[in-house]
């Protein structure tokens, strides 16, 4: 799918998202953007940077603080054949509009026996690490992935952010696109250097449903996603110097989930660590465990290990928050425990 010939520049994840949306808007008049502060402001986390200047208020619409209203309006427009890209500013706000998302956006195609499509992208900011506390720091991708009818993509870097956004907009299904604030490459937030990277100028897609082997290794498999991929790569480089070979699977998409890539890696290493910034129980880390346990539990030469938010709301104070986030130190320690 990639046009590797095209010239690349180093851009942020946020810019990569906005670039993909812009490309699709130029290519298809049915594509438009809706959300809070997506216009002149460019999106609180930069996901619509410069789009307002090019396309104007007509196709980049600021909305009232009425998530049920405008997400429902996105669904109605999609049902009529438009391709809305709707932003829910923080994923934490899902609770004021979850009925439209899970009972309507995700179910209309099925309920209609396939007669009605809802080609819509719902993008939202996830994650913590900057003391935004319990109501503005969650990931919640496990919550969306549990409910049928919506694809769920979770890019970890600028290249995938652009390619997955293009695929999401072109997809005839509703797609939840979850980006991590700490991975956007924002000038006003601590960022991992990997949040700025080479991305082709020309349009390209990254297929939804294919995990990436972010780093090949032989000793341990880390299955992870989003910003935790960046942290895991940092850890893997550091552990390599100690002779530890870590393989990192960047899931990129939770629905559909690329079971095969996970299983092949675990079969190779025999050791599984899931690193997930979402809550630990009843979520992603459990699903990865089930994929292995229902295929062949003997793949695991050691009990698997889960590094995730330990089922507590995200606390405010930095000392407390970093006490529960999957930091590089904790990832490194978890890998070493698996090898101990």
């Amino acid at each position: 799918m990639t046009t590797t010939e095209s010239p690349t520049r180093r851009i942020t994840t946020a810019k990569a998202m906005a670039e993909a949306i812009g490309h699709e808007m130029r290519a298809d008049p049915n594509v438009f953007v809706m959300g809070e502060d997506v216009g002149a402001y460019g999106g609180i986390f930069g996901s619509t940077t410069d789009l307002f200047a090019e396309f104007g208020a007509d196709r980049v619409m600021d909305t009232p603080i009425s998530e049920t209203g405008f997400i429902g309006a996105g669904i109605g427009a999609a049902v009529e054949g438009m391709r809305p890209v709707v932003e829910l500013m923080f994923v934490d706000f899902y609770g004021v509009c979850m009925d439209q998302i899970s009972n309507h956006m995700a179910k209309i195609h099925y309920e209609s026996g396939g007669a009605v499509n809802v080609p819509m992208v719902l993008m939202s900011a996830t994650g913590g690490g900057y003391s935004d506390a319990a109501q503005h720091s969650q990931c919640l991708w496990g919550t969306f992935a549990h409910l049928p009818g919506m694809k769920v993509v979770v890019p970890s870097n600028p290249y995938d952010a652009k390619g997955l956004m293009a695929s999401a907009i072109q997809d005839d299904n509703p797609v939840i696109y979850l980006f991590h604030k700490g991975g956007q490459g924002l000038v006003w937030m601590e960022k991992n250097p990997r949040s700025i990277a080479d991305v082709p100028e020309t349009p390209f897609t990254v297929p939804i449903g294919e995990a990436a082997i972010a780093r090949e290794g032989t000793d341990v498999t880390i299955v992870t996603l989003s910003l935790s991929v960046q942290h895991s790569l940092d850890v893997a480089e550091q552990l390599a110097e100690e002779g530890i070979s870590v393989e990192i699977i960047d899931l990129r998409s939770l629905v559909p989930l690329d079971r095969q890539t996970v299983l092949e890696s675990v079969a190779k290493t025999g050791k599984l660590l899931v690193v997930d910034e979402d809550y630990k129980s009843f979520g992603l880390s459990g699903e990865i465990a089930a994929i292995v346990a229902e295929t062949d539990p003997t793949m695991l030469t050691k009990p698997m290990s889960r590094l995730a938010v330990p089922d507590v709301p995200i606390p405010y104070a930095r000392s407390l928050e970093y006490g529960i986030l999957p930091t590089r130190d904790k990832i490194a320690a978890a890998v070493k425990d698996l090898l101990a």
Partner: protein
Amino acid sequence: MTTLDRLGLYTEMVRIRQYESRILQEYHADKTPAWDIGAGLIPGEMHLSAGQEPAAVGVCAHLRKGDAITAPHRPHHFALAHGVDMNAMTAEIYGRTTGLCQGKGGHMHLFDAENHFSCSGIIAQGYPVACGQALAMTRRGTDNVAIAVAGEGAANQGAFHESLNLAALWNLPVVFVIEDNDWAISVPRAGSTANTSNADRAAGYGMPGVRIEDNDVEAVFEAAGAAIDRARAGDGPSLIEVHTLRLWGHFEGDAQAYRDDMENIDDRDPIPRYAAALTAAGDLTEAKAAEITAAADAEVDAAIQFALQSPIPEPADALLHVFA
């Protein structure tokens, strides 16, 4: 209004009533002796609209190709009045492969893409969707309109508020229709709503609102005509509340023990009332009325037969249509 208009309204109301009466009968037919909601050829919840025909018929008389409707859990009258195919709709209610949704949706989830008709079982949630359909219509430069339907109970749900504000703010071609049938299951209007007319709430969004007190199909026809013309002309949304009547239970099986307004409720049935008015005005004869009813019964019977003769879905097909 011409005699033809009047007879048209009457004919459609009768058509809907005969349909609902037959569904009522078929629904209960095979749930005895031990009444089981999940049993029989028509399983599940059943919300019938008898008594509420004036709202649907008065509004839909003004709709054309491309106009959309989002209806709530009680959708049959609006579906039929809007031209949803009776056979396909009935087959859906029977859960057959020839149904609108191949048996996946059921009576609360009827989707007819061709007629831009849909409904939802979640209170008031069709309101935002109608706003989005209206948005698409304006972006495409058509003069189509979207009709959003809900009950008086639904008017206390947040989605109602957000939708009215959004539609007024963006000047969308939407007509919000509230069917006030005095009840939200067992909760009377006075137990759910702090004011007496939702038309008054429209003012809070700077949109026109009217309340029609007497379940009169012609009054609905007039008000809807004005509101729909307004929307088509690009002058924005309106709200119409129709004080109507829930002749039967909230859903079938509802004993209605809570209900204190059943006394000679049949006298308030809008259909005989309208027949009498038309007859008095010389627009309708007994013979003509009988003919209208017979035609409706024939169509309904054919639809039931169509459904009964249609195949039951294969269990494995439940796995289809999660994604396009």
